[in-house]
């Protein structure tokens, strides 16, 4: 384990230096000390995954050492693995005297990639408690902590969504540190750049692992951890982790496929394919809760359907398929969002295939952005025409 340090250079971007002095765990412990020294209010966001488990444990250990109390915040999306719920309960019960439980079970909208008819799930929808995946926790926060007037919504077309909850929730605090278990090392260079690009100034120090949001700070103390650092920490500390990882391990999932997240959004719906095997009861409840689950379970990995890699044989082109999907879109309220967006795009097969994917996954929020450029195939075909 090597820690990456930042220092000043002639360039506007920070440079990374490799230091043999510290490993990432020691560096994170130092960061925790710094956070506890600098902030009165500390809230750790947890998701039930391996990263947030490590971060929560590190923060709680420091809190226990200082006899302080920190918030553990879980935004419950309702449609999650049962193992995730168990993991959250485990984390919240780990150091009870040092934890303020902030388990949010409030009504908000979640994109449902599994059905175009039921394009959104309203989590914890009032009046539908019989359909909920599970009953609410008695100690959970069940009502919005902010007033209707002060509430902000990023995208009116979507309504009050996941990130709106986070934003409004964070705005309830002043000068707080929100710790997020985001890791940027070894996974995505873009994420790394995004994290370290704009350092924030805290207690006379430039902090490269955080961002400032209004009156609060979002901090990423394990940003330079690699996934094996996370697992080593879990092992060394004897921490419990979500059973989903074990199931995925046994199924031979590759490293980048092993994720524990929401079950229905456009980047995670494939997890439903193996859900009956992993958690049959969760799958059963999910089928009753939302439309489209059984179809995704069978076809989630098919190249012709959701992956949109093969054109269905009744269509001559992706453009024709896209037009068909728009014409027959069941959600007439939202179809104009797609139409307006696609009017700004180039018309070629390369772009149209991506548009089909968005339509099939009901991605009206544009979470799977389209690479709007000329079809690279056309240049290649022209080249072959000239040389052959």
């Amino acid at each position, binding site marked *: 384990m090597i820690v990456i340090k930042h220092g000043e250079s002639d360039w506007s971007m920070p440079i990374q230096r*490799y230091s043999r002095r510290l490993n990432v765990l020691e560096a994170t412990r130092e960061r925790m000390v710094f956070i506890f020294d600098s902030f009165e209010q500390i809230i750790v966001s947890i998701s039930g995954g391996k990263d947030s488990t490590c971060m929560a444990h590190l923060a709680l250990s420091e809190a226990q050492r200082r006899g302080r109390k920190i918030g553990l915040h879980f935004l419950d999306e309702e449609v999650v693995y049962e193992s995730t719920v168990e993991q959250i309960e485990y984390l919240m019960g780990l150091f009870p005297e040092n934890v303020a439980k902030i388990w949010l079970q409030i009504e908000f909208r979640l994109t449902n990639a599994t059905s175009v008819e039921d394009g959104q799930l309203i989590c914890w929808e009032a009046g539908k408690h019989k359909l909920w995946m599970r009953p609410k926790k008695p100690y959970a926060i069940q009502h919005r902590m902010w007033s209707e007037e002060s509430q902000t919504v990023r995208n009116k077309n979507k309504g009050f969504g996941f990130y709106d909850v986070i934003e409004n929730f964070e705005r309830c605090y002043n000068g707080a540190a929100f710790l997020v278990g985001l890791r940027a090392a*070894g996974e995505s260079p873009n994420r790394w750049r995004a994290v370290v690009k704009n350092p924030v100034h805290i207690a006379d120090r430039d902090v490269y692992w955080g961002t400032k949001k209004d009156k609060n700070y979002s901090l990423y103390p394990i940003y330079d951890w*690699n996934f*094996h650092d996370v*697992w080593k920490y879990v092992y060394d500390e004897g921490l419990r982790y979500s059973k989903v990882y074990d199931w*995925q*391990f*046994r199924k*031979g*999932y*590759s*490293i*980048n496929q*092993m994720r524990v997240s929401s079950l229905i959004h456009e980047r995670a719906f494939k997890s439903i394919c193996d859900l009956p095997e992993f958690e049959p009861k969760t799958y059963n409840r999910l089928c009753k809760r939302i439309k489209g689950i059984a179809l995704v379970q069978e076809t989630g990995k098919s190249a012709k359907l959701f992956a949109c890699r093969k*054109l269905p044989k009744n269509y*001559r*082109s*992706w453009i024709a398929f896209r037009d068909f999907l728009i014409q027959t879109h069941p959600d007439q309220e939202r179809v104009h969002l797609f139409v307006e967006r696609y009017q700004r795009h180039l018309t070629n*097969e390369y772009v149209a295939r991506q548009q089909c994917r968005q339509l099939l996954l009901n991605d009206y929020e544009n979470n799977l952005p389209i690479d709007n450029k000329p079809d690279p*195939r056309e240049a*290649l*075909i022209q080249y*072959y*025409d000239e*040389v*052959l």
Partner: protein
Amino acid sequence: MIALGLTAVEKEVMIAEYCQEHSIRKVFVLSPIRFRPLFELPCEVEYIEWAEIIMYKFFYRLLQEINNYTLLVINECLRIQDRNDLTYNCIRHFLNQTKNQFVFQYLPIIDSIDDFMILFDFDTRSKWKRDAFCGALLRECEIEIKRVNVSWREVRVETNAATTKTYAREKRRLIDDIRLRDPHTIPRNLYLISGKEKVKSIEIESQYVGRNNRFGLDNMRTYRDISGTGQYVVFELCHNFIDFIDFMSVSRQVEIPVMVSDLKVDQWYYDRYQAWGKRLVDAYSALQP
């Protein structure tokens, strides 16, 4: 250490000596199954197939088991040009666990000298993973090179006017009807036309290698079939360089006669490989200035 162009026997000798000198208890060989050498060593040997490298059931066990008493052999693992490929990342993690390592590769590149940096990363713990190839960096790693000097010989095959006409017609048809098909199918399919002409010139006493044995000839082998050393006349070249490199690594053939008809597609493939051969020579020159 990076060792280029060694035979299986040479690799085995090198590994055996190293194991003895460094009290190695176990050897892990990471290798595509086609190139898996069966080493006879004084210690335990475990082979991990290319496709298995990324699997968790191997990844974590190996991270746990690889230590300074184990030797890690990365054998013929230069298969993809993406330096950040997941399999390469996993290999790099394994290499971080031990100082005992060998990187064996037949040729230093797939297509360009930058491919060599994948091997370089293996040997240098990825310290220069963001840098492109630069001769000055080579002093950071130990390289042993057994140069592979590829030479090409053109075996000309004449076609007639009717074939040229068919070729032109087929080319137009392929381009006009390409629709959503992969554009690389154009040269691949045009190559089939020249194959029909070239098959008439096949000599019974020679061994040939082609993409497939669609003519059902006894002396024609496919690139995938070849499993040992031998001398072959190339009936048609592979579209992807990696397939041809695999053929060279297995057959150890360096003088390569290629059947080339007077159709444009044949000349295009032949020129493409000549240029590749030139890049290979340049790569050796860059590695051994």
